[in-house]
């Protein structure tokens, strides 16, 4: 059982410079599978993920987990929209979360070799991570988030700068993670990808959750003009 769940937002509001950029949001995230957070640019997808992850300062409301907060944060992973790599080698990047958690050098090295292969960077493990291409950095960030086997994984547009093959590779990794009971929440612009992967959809617009429902229902029957326009790729006002 995924114990960090449920994630519960109660009246969560994020206000920056006098403007509400998110909320108020009431949302319960439980169950299994993959949730896609959809919505136009600036809708607040990144902000919502950060709030659920517990790293965004709330201006109001609460976020709670099935565990005490510190413990809960330890069981989560986050892949940022712009991948952050440490100024270290690829292997040291992968090992970083494990070493933080107190894993020994040998265990960490074994896990790195394993995950390096899975993310397609097995041949460049001892190269500086800053030299990787944008897409490779993205793969590295994903591998680093998955390596400690999180209960809950947040992905902020992980495929935004990737070609088809890398996207397929990431989707493969996400399917495997879902199989091993990692609850995934992913922001994406790619509707085709959402159709392929999502079990559940959160549709955001202007900082509000307009809809939170099963994926089939969302794609089969848009409930508002905004949703319909979004699904058709029209420009939203």
């Amino acid at each position: 059982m995924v114990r960090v769940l449920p994630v519960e937002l109660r009246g969560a509001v994020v206000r920056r410079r006098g403007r509400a950029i998110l909320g108020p949001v009431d949302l319960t995230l439980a169950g299994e599978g993959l949730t896609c957070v959809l919505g136009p640019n600036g809708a607040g997808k990144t902000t919502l993920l950060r709030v659920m992850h517990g790293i965004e300062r709330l201006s109001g409301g609460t976020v709670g987990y099935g565990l005490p907060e510190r413990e809960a944060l330890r069981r989560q992973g986050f892949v940022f929209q712009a991948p952050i790599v440490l100024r270290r080698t690829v292997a040291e990047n992968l090992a970083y979360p494990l070493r933080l958690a107190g894993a020994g050098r040998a265990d960490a090295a074994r896990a790195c070799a394993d995950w390096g292969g899975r993310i397609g960077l097995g041949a460049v493990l001892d190269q500086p991570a800053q030299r990787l291409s944008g897409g490779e950095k993205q793969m590295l960030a994903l591998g680093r988030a998955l390596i400690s086997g999180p209960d809950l994984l947040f992905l902020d547009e992980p495929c935004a700068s990737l070609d088809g093959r890398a996207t397929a590779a990431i989707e493969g990794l996400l399917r495997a993670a879902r199989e091993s009971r990692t609850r995934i929440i992913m922001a994406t612009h790619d509707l085709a990808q959402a159709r392929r992967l999502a079990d559940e959809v959160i549709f955001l617009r202007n900082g509000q959750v307009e809809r939170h429902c099963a994926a089939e229902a969302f794609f089969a029957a848009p409930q508002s003009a905004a949703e319909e326009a979004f699904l058709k790729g029209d420009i939203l006002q």
Partner: protein
Amino acid sequence: MNDITEGLRAAFWLLVSFDAELWEISLRSLKVSLSAVVIACAIAVPLGTWLAVQRFAFRRTVIAVMNALMGLPPVVVGLMVYILLSRSGPFGVLGLLFTPTAMVIAQVVIITPLIASITHQAMRELWAEYHDLLISLNTSKWQRVRTLMWDGRRALLTAALAGFGRAIGEVGAIMVVGGNIDHATRVLTTAIALETGKGDFALALGLGFVLIGLAVCVSLVTHALSQTERRGRW
């Protein structure tokens, strides 16, 4: 003109023959300045990193004071250390005035703000880059500081080198607190000042070459460091 060519020739000879006096003065200079750099780094590096990571009430004030201290005239630092260490001063009983220790203390005071400031600058940049990741990975304060110091180690070395460069070439403060005593507190810069005053250009120039050599080494290493930084190596 003749004096100078003669001086240059003599200086060269002192260098290649490993003249005992030149050697002694150079070594003492290195010892004093390296000690000062080690002590200053032990204070300044954690301080600069901490200032980059930690938010607290008077953080900006502390940074402003640190930057202001960088501009302290060395002679004034020498004067203050002199007053503190002089026999009637609060630390007079230690009998440190006119010893190499007093010179180390003065140099520590001079270069600590410099090293802390360079460290802070570099660590702030790195922290901006790493911030979200380290927060997301639920790191402790200590783990953050350690990660930044390790990944910013080239910048830290550059800061230490800058401190060393300032310390080894500094003359005002150590003249005041060291007294330029032969075989005790005479170092490169104070000896050059003295020998030049006496008109003995040979030793002054020989010591000058050593000083220039050290300065060139420092800037070469600094340059090499920024190169490895750019290539993401080491």
